[in-house]
Protein backbone atom coordinates (compact mmCIF):
# COMPACT_ATOMS: atom_id res chain seq x y z
CA UNK A 1 0.00 0.00 0.00
CA UNK A 2 2.79 2.40 0.89
CA UNK A 3 4.21 1.88 -2.59
CA UNK A 4 1.17 3.66 -3.95
CA UNK A 5 1.25 6.62 -1.59
CA UNK A 6 4.47 8.23 -2.83
CA UNK A 7 3.58 8.30 -6.55
CA UNK A 8 0.03 9.48 -5.91
CA UNK A 9 1.15 12.19 -3.49
CA UNK A 10 3.84 13.23 -5.96
CA UNK A 11 1.35 13.57 -8.79
CA UNK A 12 -0.96 15.58 -6.54
CA UNK A 13 1.87 17.86 -5.45
CA UNK A 14 2.93 18.40 -9.07
CA UNK A 15 -0.66 19.26 -10.02
CA UNK A 16 -0.61 21.82 -7.24
CA UNK A 17 2.63 23.47 -8.33
CA UNK A 18 1.66 23.53 -12.01
CA UNK A 19 -1.74 24.89 -10.96
CA UNK A 20 0.02 27.79 -9.27
CA UNK A 21 2.08 28.38 -12.42
CA UNK A 22 -1.08 28.37 -14.55
CA UNK A 23 -2.76 30.81 -12.17
CA UNK A 24 0.32 33.02 -12.39
CA UNK A 25 -0.23 33.51 -16.10
CA UNK A 26 -3.93 34.14 -15.59
CA UNK A 27 -5.44 30.72 -16.31
CA UNK A 28 -7.90 29.13 -13.91
CA UNK A 29 -6.15 25.84 -13.03
CA UNK A 30 -9.36 23.99 -12.12
CA UNK A 31 -10.86 24.85 -15.47
CA UNK A 32 -7.63 23.88 -17.24
CA UNK A 33 -7.41 20.50 -15.48
CA UNK A 34 -11.08 19.83 -16.21
CA UNK A 35 -10.44 20.53 -19.90
CA UNK A 36 -7.38 18.26 -19.88
CA UNK A 37 -9.39 15.45 -18.33
CA UNK A 38 -12.52 15.68 -20.46
CA UNK A 39 -10.58 16.06 -23.69
CA UNK A 40 -8.69 12.81 -23.04
CA UNK A 41 -11.38 10.61 -21.56
CA UNK A 42 -14.79 11.60 -22.84
CA UNK A 43 -14.55 11.00 -26.57
CA UNK A 44 -13.19 8.30 -28.83
CA UNK A 45 -10.85 10.87 -30.37
CA UNK A 46 -9.52 11.78 -26.94
CA UNK A 47 -8.91 8.15 -26.03
CA UNK A 48 -7.30 7.52 -29.42
CA UNK A 49 -4.92 10.45 -28.89
CA UNK A 50 -4.11 9.13 -25.43
CA UNK A 51 -3.03 5.81 -27.00
CA UNK A 52 -1.17 7.64 -29.78
CA UNK A 53 0.94 9.56 -27.24
CA UNK A 54 1.35 6.57 -24.92
CA UNK A 55 2.78 4.36 -27.68
CA UNK A 56 6.20 6.04 -28.17
CA UNK A 57 6.44 6.67 -24.41
CA UNK A 58 6.15 2.94 -23.65
CA UNK A 59 9.03 2.28 -26.03
CA UNK A 60 11.28 5.14 -24.92
CA UNK A 61 10.41 4.27 -21.32
CA UNK A 62 11.73 0.76 -21.97
CA UNK A 63 14.73 2.23 -23.80
CA UNK A 64 15.69 3.95 -20.55
CA UNK A 65 14.44 1.26 -18.15
CA UNK A 66 16.41 -1.73 -19.50
CA UNK A 67 19.88 -0.14 -19.37
CA UNK A 68 18.90 1.40 -16.02
CA UNK A 69 18.42 -2.10 -14.59
CA UNK A 70 22.11 -2.63 -15.33
CA UNK A 71 22.93 0.75 -13.77
CA UNK A 72 23.34 2.61 -17.07
CA UNK A 73 21.72 5.90 -18.03
CA UNK A 74 20.46 5.95 -21.59
CA UNK A 75 19.74 9.64 -22.15
CA UNK A 76 20.00 9.03 -25.88
CA UNK A 77 16.57 7.61 -26.65
CA UNK A 78 15.67 10.82 -28.48
CA UNK A 79 18.54 10.39 -30.94
CA UNK A 80 17.98 6.65 -31.28
CA UNK A 81 14.35 7.42 -32.10
CA UNK A 82 15.42 9.86 -34.82
CA UNK A 83 17.84 7.34 -36.33
CA UNK A 84 15.11 4.67 -36.35
CA UNK A 85 12.73 7.10 -38.02
CA UNK A 86 15.36 8.01 -40.58
CA UNK A 87 16.09 4.37 -41.44
CA UNK A 88 12.41 3.48 -41.72
CA UNK A 89 11.85 6.48 -43.98
CA UNK A 90 14.64 5.46 -46.35
CA UNK A 91 13.08 2.02 -46.70
CA UNK A 92 9.58 3.47 -47.12
CA UNK A 93 10.56 5.96 -49.80
CA UNK A 94 13.26 4.24 -51.81
CA UNK A 95 13.05 0.45 -51.44
CA UNK A 96 10.09 -0.42 -53.73
CA UNK A 97 9.47 -3.51 -51.64
CA UNK A 98 6.21 -5.44 -52.15
CA UNK A 99 3.45 -4.58 -49.67
CA UNK A 100 3.84 -7.70 -47.49
CA UNK A 101 7.55 -6.98 -46.92
CA UNK A 102 7.43 -3.21 -46.54
CA UNK A 103 6.38 -2.72 -42.90
CA UNK A 104 8.49 -5.62 -41.58
CA UNK A 105 11.52 -4.26 -43.42
CA UNK A 106 10.94 -0.77 -42.01
CA UNK A 107 10.54 -2.24 -38.55
CA UNK A 108 13.77 -4.20 -38.80
CA UNK A 109 15.94 -1.44 -40.23
CA UNK A 110 14.62 1.00 -37.63
CA UNK A 111 15.44 -1.49 -34.87
CA UNK A 112 18.93 -1.99 -36.29
CA UNK A 113 19.65 1.73 -36.70
CA UNK A 114 18.40 2.49 -33.19
CA UNK A 115 20.65 -0.27 -31.94
CA UNK A 116 23.63 0.91 -33.95
CA UNK A 117 23.22 4.43 -32.59
CA UNK A 118 23.17 3.05 -29.04
CA UNK A 119 26.13 0.81 -29.81
CA UNK A 120 28.49 3.80 -29.99
CA UNK A 121 28.06 4.91 -26.36
CA UNK A 122 27.72 1.27 -25.25
CA UNK A 123 31.08 0.25 -26.67
CA UNK A 124 32.75 3.45 -25.46
CA UNK A 125 31.41 2.73 -21.99
CA UNK A 126 32.41 -0.93 -21.99
CA UNK A 127 35.88 -0.36 -23.46
CA UNK A 128 36.96 3.01 -22.09
CA UNK A 129 34.50 3.65 -19.27
CA UNK A 130 33.35 6.79 -21.08
CA UNK A 131 30.47 8.44 -19.20
CA UNK A 132 27.36 7.19 -21.02
CA UNK A 133 25.16 10.06 -19.82
CA UNK A 134 27.23 12.56 -21.80
CA UNK A 135 27.88 10.39 -24.85
CA UNK A 136 24.26 9.31 -25.33
CA UNK A 137 23.08 12.87 -24.81
CA UNK A 138 25.56 14.43 -27.24
CA UNK A 139 24.65 11.87 -29.91
CA UNK A 140 21.04 13.10 -29.72
CA UNK A 141 22.11 16.38 -31.25
CA UNK A 142 24.10 14.61 -33.94
CA UNK A 143 21.10 12.42 -34.87
CA UNK A 144 18.67 15.34 -34.93
CA UNK A 145 20.99 17.43 -37.14
CA UNK A 146 21.46 14.40 -39.36
CA UNK A 147 17.72 14.15 -39.93
CA UNK A 148 17.61 17.92 -40.52
CA UNK A 149 20.39 17.60 -43.06
CA UNK A 150 18.55 14.82 -44.88
CA UNK A 151 15.15 16.55 -45.05
CA UNK A 152 16.66 19.91 -46.01
CA UNK A 153 18.87 18.20 -48.57
CA UNK A 154 19.00 14.76 -50.16
CA UNK A 155 15.63 13.49 -48.92
CA UNK A 156 13.55 16.63 -49.43
CA UNK A 157 10.37 15.68 -51.25
CA UNK A 158 9.33 16.73 -54.74
CA UNK A 159 5.77 17.60 -53.70
CA UNK A 160 6.41 19.61 -50.55
CA UNK A 161 6.68 23.20 -51.85
CA UNK A 162 10.17 23.61 -50.41
CA UNK A 163 9.17 22.66 -46.87
CA UNK A 164 11.78 20.54 -45.09
CA UNK A 165 9.85 17.28 -45.42
CA UNK A 166 10.15 14.13 -47.42
CA UNK A 167 7.26 13.18 -49.65
CA UNK A 168 4.41 11.24 -48.03
CA UNK A 169 5.08 7.52 -47.60
CA UNK A 170 3.25 5.15 -49.98
CA UNK A 171 0.18 3.61 -48.33
CA UNK A 172 1.83 0.22 -47.93
CA UNK A 173 4.44 1.88 -45.68
CA UNK A 174 1.91 3.28 -43.20
CA UNK A 175 0.53 1.50 -40.15
CA UNK A 176 -3.18 0.68 -40.30
CA UNK A 177 -5.41 3.09 -38.35
CA UNK A 178 -8.69 2.20 -36.64
CA UNK A 179 -12.08 3.68 -35.68
CA UNK A 180 -11.67 6.69 -37.96
CA UNK A 181 -9.09 8.13 -35.54
CA UNK A 182 -5.29 8.31 -35.46
CA UNK A 183 -5.25 5.21 -33.23
CA UNK A 184 -2.94 2.78 -35.04
CA UNK A 185 -1.33 -0.64 -34.94
CA UNK A 186 1.78 0.73 -33.24
CA UNK A 187 -0.04 0.77 -29.91
CA UNK A 188 -0.32 -3.02 -29.92
CA UNK A 189 3.28 -3.41 -31.04
CA UNK A 190 4.42 -1.35 -28.06
CA UNK A 191 2.30 -3.39 -25.64
CA UNK A 192 3.58 -6.68 -27.07
CA UNK A 193 7.17 -5.50 -26.74
CA UNK A 194 6.61 -4.44 -23.13
CA UNK A 195 5.15 -7.86 -22.31
CA UNK A 196 8.04 -9.63 -24.03
CA UNK A 197 10.52 -7.54 -22.07
CA UNK A 198 8.68 -8.33 -18.86
CA UNK A 199 9.29 -11.99 -19.62
CA UNK A 200 12.94 -11.48 -20.60
CA UNK A 201 13.72 -9.43 -17.53
CA UNK A 202 12.12 -11.82 -15.07
CA UNK A 203 12.56 -15.26 -16.57
CA UNK A 204 15.82 -15.37 -18.49
CA UNK A 205 19.51 -15.51 -17.62
CA UNK A 206 20.02 -12.20 -19.37
CA UNK A 207 17.37 -10.56 -17.19
CA UNK A 208 19.12 -11.98 -14.13
CA UNK A 209 22.55 -10.75 -15.20
CA UNK A 210 21.10 -7.27 -15.81
CA UNK A 211 19.92 -7.23 -12.23
CA UNK A 212 23.21 -8.46 -10.80
CA UNK A 213 25.31 -5.96 -12.74
CA UNK A 214 22.97 -3.15 -11.73
CA UNK A 215 22.77 -4.10 -8.07
CA UNK A 216 26.34 -5.14 -7.42
CA UNK A 217 28.95 -5.03 -10.18
CA UNK A 218 31.51 -6.85 -8.09
CA UNK A 219 29.14 -9.74 -7.45
CA UNK A 220 28.72 -9.95 -11.21
CA UNK A 221 32.46 -10.51 -11.58
CA UNK A 222 32.39 -13.32 -8.97
CA UNK A 223 29.37 -14.89 -10.66
CA UNK A 224 31.25 -14.96 -13.94
CA UNK A 225 28.93 -12.46 -15.61
CA UNK A 226 30.75 -10.28 -18.10
CA UNK A 227 29.94 -6.72 -17.16
CA UNK A 228 31.06 -5.44 -20.55
CA UNK A 229 28.65 -7.73 -22.34
CA UNK A 230 25.72 -6.78 -20.16
CA UNK A 231 26.50 -3.08 -20.63
CA UNK A 232 26.58 -3.43 -24.39
CA UNK A 233 23.53 -5.70 -24.68
CA UNK A 234 21.31 -3.67 -22.38
CA UNK A 235 22.16 -0.50 -24.26
CA UNK A 236 21.57 -2.18 -27.64
CA UNK A 237 18.20 -3.40 -26.47
CA UNK A 238 17.33 0.11 -25.30
CA UNK A 239 18.41 1.62 -28.61
CA UNK A 240 16.35 -0.95 -30.46
CA UNK A 241 13.14 0.07 -28.66
CA UNK A 242 13.77 3.75 -29.26
CA UNK A 243 14.48 3.02 -32.94
CA UNK A 244 11.21 1.13 -33.21
CA UNK A 245 9.45 4.10 -31.59
CA UNK A 246 10.86 6.24 -34.39
CA UNK A 247 9.54 3.90 -37.07
CA UNK A 248 6.11 3.85 -35.41
CA UNK A 249 5.98 7.64 -35.23
CA UNK A 250 6.79 8.17 -38.91
CA UNK A 251 4.69 5.33 -40.28
CA UNK A 252 1.77 5.67 -37.85
CA UNK A 253 1.45 9.42 -37.27
CA UNK A 254 3.65 11.66 -39.42
CA UNK A 255 3.53 9.51 -42.60
CA UNK A 256 6.73 11.25 -43.72
CA UNK A 257 10.09 12.25 -42.27
CA UNK A 258 10.39 15.80 -40.93
CA UNK A 259 12.64 17.64 -38.45
CA UNK A 260 10.36 17.59 -35.40
CA UNK A 261 9.02 14.04 -35.32
CA UNK A 262 9.35 13.79 -31.56
CA UNK A 263 8.21 16.26 -28.91
CA UNK A 264 10.81 15.09 -26.44
CA UNK A 265 9.54 11.48 -26.24
CA UNK A 266 13.10 10.26 -25.78
CA UNK A 267 13.70 12.55 -22.82
CA UNK A 268 10.27 11.79 -21.39
CA UNK A 269 11.35 8.14 -21.34
CA UNK A 270 13.55 9.01 -18.34
CA UNK A 271 10.72 10.02 -15.97
CA UNK A 272 8.55 7.23 -17.43
CA UNK A 273 11.20 4.66 -16.50
CA UNK A 274 11.92 6.22 -13.10
CA UNK A 275 8.25 6.40 -12.13
CA UNK A 276 7.94 2.73 -13.07
CA UNK A 277 11.18 1.95 -11.19
CA UNK A 278 12.38 0.07 -14.25
CA UNK A 279 9.54 -2.49 -14.22
CA UNK A 280 8.33 -3.16 -17.81
CA UNK A 281 4.69 -3.67 -16.81
CA UNK A 282 4.65 -0.48 -14.79
CA UNK A 283 6.32 1.31 -17.71
CA UNK A 284 3.04 0.86 -19.60
CA UNK A 285 1.11 2.49 -16.76
CA UNK A 286 3.49 5.39 -16.32
CA UNK A 287 3.68 5.87 -20.10
CA UNK A 288 -0.11 6.20 -20.05
CA UNK A 289 0.11 8.85 -17.32
CA UNK A 290 2.70 10.85 -19.26
CA UNK A 291 0.70 10.26 -22.45
CA UNK A 292 -2.22 11.89 -20.67
CA UNK A 293 0.00 14.85 -19.78
CA UNK A 294 1.00 15.17 -23.44
CA UNK A 295 -2.60 15.08 -24.67
CA UNK A 296 -3.70 17.44 -21.94
CA UNK A 297 -0.71 19.67 -22.62
CA UNK A 298 -1.51 19.98 -26.30
CA UNK A 299 -5.15 20.71 -25.50
CA UNK A 300 -4.02 23.48 -23.14
CA UNK A 301 -1.85 24.71 -25.96
CA UNK A 302 -4.76 24.97 -28.38
CA UNK A 303 -7.37 26.20 -25.86
CA UNK A 304 -5.33 28.58 -23.71
CA UNK A 305 -2.15 28.80 -25.82
CA UNK A 306 -0.12 27.42 -22.90
CA UNK A 307 3.30 26.38 -24.24
CA UNK A 308 4.04 22.65 -24.27
CA UNK A 309 6.87 23.33 -21.81
CA UNK A 310 4.31 22.81 -19.08
CA UNK A 311 4.51 19.07 -19.82
CA UNK A 312 8.25 19.01 -19.06
CA UNK A 313 7.62 20.91 -15.83
CA UNK A 314 5.08 18.26 -14.84
CA UNK A 315 7.44 15.42 -15.71
CA UNK A 316 10.36 16.79 -13.72
CA UNK A 317 8.25 17.75 -10.70
CA UNK A 318 6.67 14.30 -10.44
CA UNK A 319 10.10 12.65 -10.35
CA UNK A 320 11.54 15.19 -7.91
CA UNK A 321 8.62 14.74 -5.53
CA UNK A 322 8.94 10.97 -5.73
CA UNK A 323 12.63 11.15 -4.85
CA UNK A 324 11.88 13.50 -1.99
CA UNK A 325 9.15 11.15 -0.77
CA UNK A 326 11.43 8.12 -0.93
CA UNK A 327 14.22 9.90 0.93
CA UNK A 328 11.86 11.06 3.64
CA UNK A 329 10.50 7.55 4.09
CA UNK A 330 14.01 6.12 4.32
CA UNK A 331 14.59 8.36 7.31
CA UNK A 332 11.58 7.07 9.30
Amino acid at each position, binding site marked *: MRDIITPVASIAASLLVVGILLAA*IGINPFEAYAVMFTSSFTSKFGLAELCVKTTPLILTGLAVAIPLRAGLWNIGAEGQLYMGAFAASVVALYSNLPSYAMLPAMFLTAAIFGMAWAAIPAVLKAKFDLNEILST*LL*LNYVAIYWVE*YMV*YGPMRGKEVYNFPYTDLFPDIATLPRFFGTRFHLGFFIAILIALAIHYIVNKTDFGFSLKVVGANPRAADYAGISRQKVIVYSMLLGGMFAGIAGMIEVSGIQLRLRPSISTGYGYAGIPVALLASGNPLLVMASAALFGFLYVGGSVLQTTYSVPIGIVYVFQSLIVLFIIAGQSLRRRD
Partner: protein
Amino acid sequence: MVDPGFLASLLASSIRAGTPLLYATLGEIITERSGVLNLGLEGIMITGAFTGFAVSLATGNPWLGVLCGGIAGMLLALVHAFFSITLKANQSITGLMLVLLGLGITGFLGRNYIGEVAFYLDPVKIPVLSDLPYIGEVLFSHDPMAYFAVILAAFLWFILFKTRYGLEIIAAGEKPEAADSMGVNVDRVRYFSTLFGGFLVGIGGAYLSLAYAKLWTEGMTAGRGWICLALVIFSGWMPQRAILGAYLFGGLDVLSFKLQATGVGVSYHLMKMVPYVVTIVVLLFSVIRKRAAFGAPAALGIPYVRGKKE
Protein backbone atom coordinates in the same frame (compact mmCIF):
# COMPACT_ATOMS: atom_id res chain seq x y z
CA MET B 1 45.75 30.53 -47.47
CA VAL B 2 43.82 32.21 -44.71
CA ASP B 3 42.83 35.84 -44.81
CA PRO B 4 44.09 37.49 -41.56
CA GLY B 5 40.97 39.62 -41.37
CA PHE B 6 38.80 36.50 -41.44
CA LEU B 7 40.99 34.83 -38.85
CA ALA B 8 40.81 37.85 -36.54
CA SER B 9 37.04 38.02 -36.73
CA LEU B 10 36.83 34.24 -36.19
CA LEU B 11 39.03 34.43 -33.10
CA ALA B 12 37.15 37.43 -31.75
CA SER B 13 33.80 35.68 -32.08
CA SER B 14 35.27 32.49 -30.63
CA ILE B 15 35.96 34.43 -27.45
CA ARG B 16 32.43 35.84 -27.41
CA ALA B 17 30.92 32.40 -28.06
CA GLY B 18 33.26 30.78 -25.54
CA THR B 19 32.54 33.19 -22.70
CA PRO B 20 29.15 31.70 -21.70
CA LEU B 21 30.78 28.26 -21.81
CA LEU B 22 33.61 29.52 -19.61
CA TYR B 23 31.29 30.85 -16.90
CA ALA B 24 29.28 27.64 -16.83
CA THR B 25 32.37 25.41 -16.88
CA LEU B 26 33.99 27.36 -14.03
CA GLY B 27 30.79 27.06 -12.03
CA GLU B 28 30.58 23.32 -12.51
CA ILE B 29 34.27 22.89 -11.67
CA ILE B 30 33.68 24.47 -8.27
CA THR B 31 30.56 22.33 -7.74
CA GLU B 32 32.26 19.08 -8.75
CA ARG B 33 35.42 19.85 -6.78
CA SER B 34 33.29 19.74 -3.64
CA GLY B 35 31.96 16.29 -4.57
CA VAL B 36 28.59 17.26 -6.03
CA LEU B 37 27.82 16.25 -9.62
CA ASN B 38 25.27 18.64 -11.10
CA LEU B 39 24.11 17.35 -14.49
CA GLY B 40 21.49 20.09 -14.69
CA LEU B 41 23.68 22.72 -16.39
CA GLU B 42 21.53 22.83 -19.52
CA GLY B 43 18.45 23.62 -17.44
CA ILE B 44 20.26 26.12 -15.21
CA MET B 45 21.83 27.91 -18.17
CA ILE B 46 18.54 28.32 -20.00
CA THR B 47 16.92 29.60 -16.82
CA GLY B 48 19.73 32.14 -16.45
CA ALA B 49 19.34 33.12 -20.10
CA PHE B 50 15.62 33.70 -19.75
CA THR B 51 15.75 35.45 -16.39
CA GLY B 52 18.55 37.73 -17.55
CA PHE B 53 16.65 38.64 -20.69
CA ALA B 54 13.35 39.25 -18.91
CA VAL B 55 14.94 41.39 -16.17
CA SER B 56 16.91 43.42 -18.68
CA LEU B 57 13.76 44.01 -20.70
CA ALA B 58 11.77 45.03 -17.64
CA THR B 59 14.35 47.27 -15.99
CA GLY B 60 16.40 48.48 -18.95
CA ASN B 61 19.53 47.38 -17.11
CA PRO B 62 21.41 44.43 -18.63
CA TRP B 63 23.74 44.28 -15.62
CA LEU B 64 20.81 43.70 -13.32
CA GLY B 65 19.77 41.03 -15.84
CA VAL B 66 23.11 39.26 -15.51
CA LEU B 67 22.89 39.40 -11.71
CA CYS B 68 19.33 38.03 -11.68
CA GLY B 69 20.30 35.33 -14.19
CA GLY B 70 22.94 34.24 -11.70
CA ILE B 71 20.47 34.30 -8.83
CA ALA B 72 17.96 32.23 -10.81
CA GLY B 73 20.73 29.72 -11.52
CA MET B 74 21.52 29.66 -7.84
CA LEU B 75 17.90 28.90 -6.97
CA LEU B 76 17.82 25.88 -9.29
CA ALA B 77 21.17 24.78 -7.86
CA LEU B 78 19.57 25.06 -4.42
CA VAL B 79 17.03 22.43 -5.48
CA HIS B 80 19.90 20.20 -6.54
CA ALA B 81 21.81 20.88 -3.33
CA PHE B 82 18.79 20.09 -1.18
CA PHE B 83 18.21 16.77 -2.92
CA SER B 84 21.80 15.64 -3.18
CA ILE B 85 23.23 17.00 0.09
CA THR B 86 20.33 17.07 2.52
CA LEU B 87 18.25 14.19 1.16
CA LYS B 88 21.35 12.24 -0.08
CA ALA B 89 19.38 11.34 -3.22
CA ASN B 90 20.85 10.09 -6.50
CA GLN B 91 22.58 13.12 -7.99
CA SER B 92 22.23 12.01 -11.61
CA ILE B 93 18.44 11.86 -11.43
CA THR B 94 18.04 15.28 -9.81
CA GLY B 95 20.41 16.87 -12.29
CA LEU B 96 18.57 15.39 -15.26
CA MET B 97 15.24 16.55 -13.87
CA LEU B 98 16.63 20.08 -13.49
CA VAL B 99 17.24 20.05 -17.23
CA LEU B 100 13.60 19.19 -17.92
CA LEU B 101 12.44 21.67 -15.30
CA GLY B 102 14.57 24.52 -16.63
CA LEU B 103 13.67 23.91 -20.27
CA GLY B 104 10.00 23.48 -19.40
CA ILE B 105 9.60 26.49 -17.15
CA THR B 106 11.43 28.85 -19.51
CA GLY B 107 9.43 27.56 -22.47
CA PHE B 108 6.30 28.17 -20.43
CA LEU B 109 7.12 31.63 -19.09
CA GLY B 110 9.15 32.73 -22.08
CA ARG B 111 6.57 32.48 -24.84
CA ASN B 112 5.77 36.21 -24.76
CA TYR B 113 9.42 37.23 -24.86
CA ILE B 114 10.28 35.67 -28.21
CA GLY B 115 11.08 38.44 -30.69
CA GLU B 116 11.37 41.11 -27.99
CA VAL B 117 14.38 43.42 -27.94
CA ALA B 118 15.98 43.86 -24.53
CA PHE B 119 18.96 45.94 -23.40
CA TYR B 120 22.27 44.25 -24.04
CA LEU B 121 25.86 44.33 -22.84
CA ASP B 122 27.87 46.48 -25.23
CA PRO B 123 31.50 45.98 -26.13
CA VAL B 124 33.98 48.32 -24.50
CA LYS B 125 36.94 49.14 -26.71
CA ILE B 126 40.03 49.45 -24.61
CA PRO B 127 41.70 52.73 -25.67
CA VAL B 128 44.88 52.45 -27.76
CA LEU B 129 45.10 48.65 -27.48
CA SER B 130 41.89 48.10 -29.44
CA ASP B 131 43.39 50.10 -32.31
CA LEU B 132 46.15 47.55 -32.80
CA PRO B 133 45.66 45.80 -36.12
CA TYR B 134 43.88 42.41 -35.75
CA ILE B 135 45.06 41.91 -32.14
CA GLY B 136 42.89 44.82 -31.08
CA GLU B 137 39.83 43.14 -32.58
CA VAL B 138 40.61 39.73 -31.11
CA LEU B 139 41.63 40.72 -27.58
CA PHE B 140 40.58 44.24 -26.70
CA SER B 141 37.11 44.89 -28.15
CA HIS B 142 34.82 42.83 -25.94
CA ASP B 143 32.18 43.57 -23.35
CA PRO B 144 33.33 43.74 -19.70
CA MET B 145 31.85 40.33 -18.84
CA ALA B 146 34.14 38.65 -21.36
CA TYR B 147 37.25 40.12 -19.73
CA PHE B 148 35.90 39.37 -16.31
CA ALA B 149 35.50 35.66 -17.16
CA VAL B 150 39.26 35.32 -17.61
CA ILE B 151 39.98 37.19 -14.39
CA LEU B 152 37.46 34.95 -12.67
CA ALA B 153 39.23 31.81 -13.92
CA ALA B 154 42.52 33.08 -12.47
CA PHE B 155 40.78 34.08 -9.24
CA LEU B 156 39.17 30.65 -8.86
CA TRP B 157 42.50 28.95 -9.51
CA PHE B 158 43.95 31.03 -6.70
CA ILE B 159 41.06 30.28 -4.34
CA LEU B 160 41.07 26.55 -5.06
CA PHE B 161 44.78 25.91 -4.78
CA LYS B 162 46.18 28.69 -2.63
CA THR B 163 43.66 29.32 0.11
CA ARG B 164 42.08 27.47 3.00
CA TYR B 165 38.61 27.72 1.41
CA GLY B 166 39.91 25.93 -1.66
CA LEU B 167 41.52 23.29 0.48
CA GLU B 168 38.20 22.65 2.21
CA ILE B 169 36.34 22.39 -1.09
CA ILE B 170 38.87 19.94 -2.52
CA ALA B 171 38.91 17.93 0.70
CA ALA B 172 35.10 17.67 0.66
CA GLY B 173 35.30 16.28 -2.86
CA GLU B 174 38.26 13.98 -2.39
CA LYS B 175 37.98 12.59 1.12
CA PRO B 176 34.88 13.86 2.90
CA GLU B 177 35.41 11.65 5.97
CA ALA B 178 38.92 13.02 6.44
CA ALA B 179 37.70 16.57 5.90
CA ASP B 180 34.98 15.97 8.45
CA SER B 181 37.43 14.71 11.04
CA MET B 182 39.56 17.81 10.45
CA GLY B 183 36.58 19.92 11.47
CA VAL B 184 35.34 20.86 7.98
CA ASN B 185 31.57 21.01 7.71
CA VAL B 186 31.27 18.93 4.53
CA ASP B 187 27.59 19.61 3.94
CA ARG B 188 28.09 23.35 4.32
CA VAL B 189 31.05 23.41 1.93
CA ARG B 190 29.08 21.39 -0.62
CA TYR B 191 26.03 23.63 -0.30
CA PHE B 192 28.16 26.70 -0.78
CA SER B 193 30.01 25.26 -3.79
CA THR B 194 26.81 24.05 -5.46
CA LEU B 195 25.09 27.41 -5.01
CA PHE B 196 28.12 29.37 -6.15
CA GLY B 197 28.48 27.02 -9.14
CA GLY B 198 24.81 27.48 -10.03
CA PHE B 199 25.27 31.24 -9.81
CA LEU B 200 28.08 31.15 -12.38
CA VAL B 201 26.18 28.78 -14.68
CA GLY B 202 23.20 31.15 -14.52
CA ILE B 203 25.49 34.05 -15.42
CA GLY B 204 26.78 32.03 -18.37
CA GLY B 205 23.18 31.66 -19.52
CA ALA B 206 22.46 35.36 -19.06
CA TYR B 207 25.58 36.19 -21.06
CA LEU B 208 24.22 34.00 -23.83
CA SER B 209 21.00 35.98 -24.20
CA LEU B 210 22.32 39.43 -23.24
CA ALA B 211 25.72 39.59 -24.90
CA TYR B 212 26.26 36.74 -27.36
CA ALA B 213 22.97 35.95 -29.11
CA LYS B 214 21.20 39.17 -28.05
CA LEU B 215 17.77 37.60 -28.14
CA TRP B 216 15.60 35.08 -26.35
CA THR B 217 14.34 31.88 -27.96
CA GLU B 218 13.06 28.68 -26.44
CA GLY B 219 15.80 26.11 -25.89
CA MET B 220 18.46 28.58 -27.04
CA THR B 221 21.21 26.89 -24.99
CA ALA B 222 21.07 24.09 -27.61
CA GLY B 223 23.19 21.62 -25.68
CA ARG B 224 25.81 24.06 -24.38
CA GLY B 225 25.18 22.86 -20.82
CA TRP B 226 26.17 19.34 -21.81
CA ILE B 227 29.22 20.56 -23.66
CA CYS B 228 30.29 22.39 -20.49
CA LEU B 229 30.00 19.16 -18.51
CA ALA B 230 32.42 17.64 -21.00
CA LEU B 231 34.65 20.73 -20.76
CA VAL B 232 34.95 20.17 -17.01
CA ILE B 233 36.43 16.74 -17.69
CA PHE B 234 38.55 18.12 -20.54
CA SER B 235 40.02 20.77 -18.25
CA GLY B 236 40.81 18.20 -15.60
CA TRP B 237 38.79 20.15 -13.02
CA MET B 238 41.31 23.03 -13.29
CA PRO B 239 39.84 26.55 -13.72
CA GLN B 240 42.84 27.82 -15.70
CA ARG B 241 42.52 25.04 -18.27
CA ALA B 242 38.84 25.77 -18.77
CA ILE B 243 39.74 29.01 -20.58
CA LEU B 244 41.33 27.28 -23.53
CA GLY B 245 38.61 24.61 -23.75
CA ALA B 246 35.79 27.14 -23.66
CA TYR B 247 37.28 29.30 -26.43
CA LEU B 248 38.05 26.25 -28.53
CA PHE B 249 34.44 25.13 -28.38
CA GLY B 250 33.24 28.67 -28.83
CA GLY B 251 35.28 28.66 -32.04
CA LEU B 252 33.64 25.45 -33.26
CA ASP B 253 30.28 27.03 -32.56
CA VAL B 254 30.92 30.07 -34.77
CA LEU B 255 32.87 28.25 -37.46
CA SER B 256 29.73 26.94 -39.15
CA PHE B 257 28.29 30.45 -39.52
CA LYS B 258 31.57 31.95 -40.67
CA LEU B 259 32.27 29.22 -43.20
CA GLN B 260 28.82 29.55 -44.63
CA ALA B 261 29.21 33.31 -44.94
CA THR B 262 32.40 32.80 -46.94
CA GLY B 263 30.60 30.39 -49.24
CA VAL B 264 32.51 27.22 -48.42
CA GLY B 265 30.35 24.37 -49.66
CA VAL B 266 29.72 22.54 -46.40
CA SER B 267 26.17 21.86 -45.28
CA TYR B 268 25.07 24.07 -42.42
CA HIS B 269 23.32 21.14 -40.74
CA LEU B 270 26.37 18.93 -40.95
CA MET B 271 28.54 21.72 -39.53
CA LYS B 272 26.16 22.05 -36.59
CA MET B 273 27.01 18.45 -35.61
CA VAL B 274 30.71 19.20 -35.29
CA PRO B 275 30.84 20.57 -31.71
CA TYR B 276 28.98 17.51 -30.40
CA VAL B 277 31.14 15.02 -32.28
CA VAL B 278 34.32 16.82 -31.21
CA THR B 279 33.09 16.82 -27.61
CA ILE B 280 32.73 13.05 -27.67
CA VAL B 281 36.18 12.62 -29.20
CA VAL B 282 37.72 14.97 -26.63
CA LEU B 283 35.96 13.12 -23.81
CA LEU B 284 37.37 9.91 -25.15
CA PHE B 285 40.90 11.29 -25.10
CA SER B 286 40.37 12.60 -21.60
CA VAL B 287 39.26 9.24 -20.22
CA ILE B 288 42.02 7.36 -22.00
CA ARG B 289 44.61 9.73 -20.53
CA LYS B 290 42.87 9.68 -17.18
CA ARG B 291 45.75 8.30 -15.15
CA ALA B 292 48.20 10.97 -16.28
CA ALA B 293 46.89 14.44 -15.63
CA PHE B 294 43.13 14.11 -15.50
CA GLY B 295 41.46 13.09 -12.33
CA ALA B 296 37.93 13.41 -11.09
CA PRO B 297 37.42 14.23 -7.41
CA ALA B 298 37.37 10.86 -5.67
CA ALA B 299 34.02 11.39 -3.94
CA LEU B 300 32.29 12.99 -6.95
CA GLY B 301 28.60 12.19 -7.00
CA ILE B 302 28.68 10.25 -3.74
CA PRO B 303 26.49 11.62 -0.94
CA TYR B 304 28.36 12.05 2.30
CA VAL B 305 26.71 10.43 5.29
CA ARG B 306 28.44 11.09 8.55
CA GLY B 307 29.85 8.06 10.30
CA LYS B 308 29.05 5.70 7.44
CA LYS B 309 31.95 3.64 6.14
CA GLU B 310 32.10 2.62 2.50
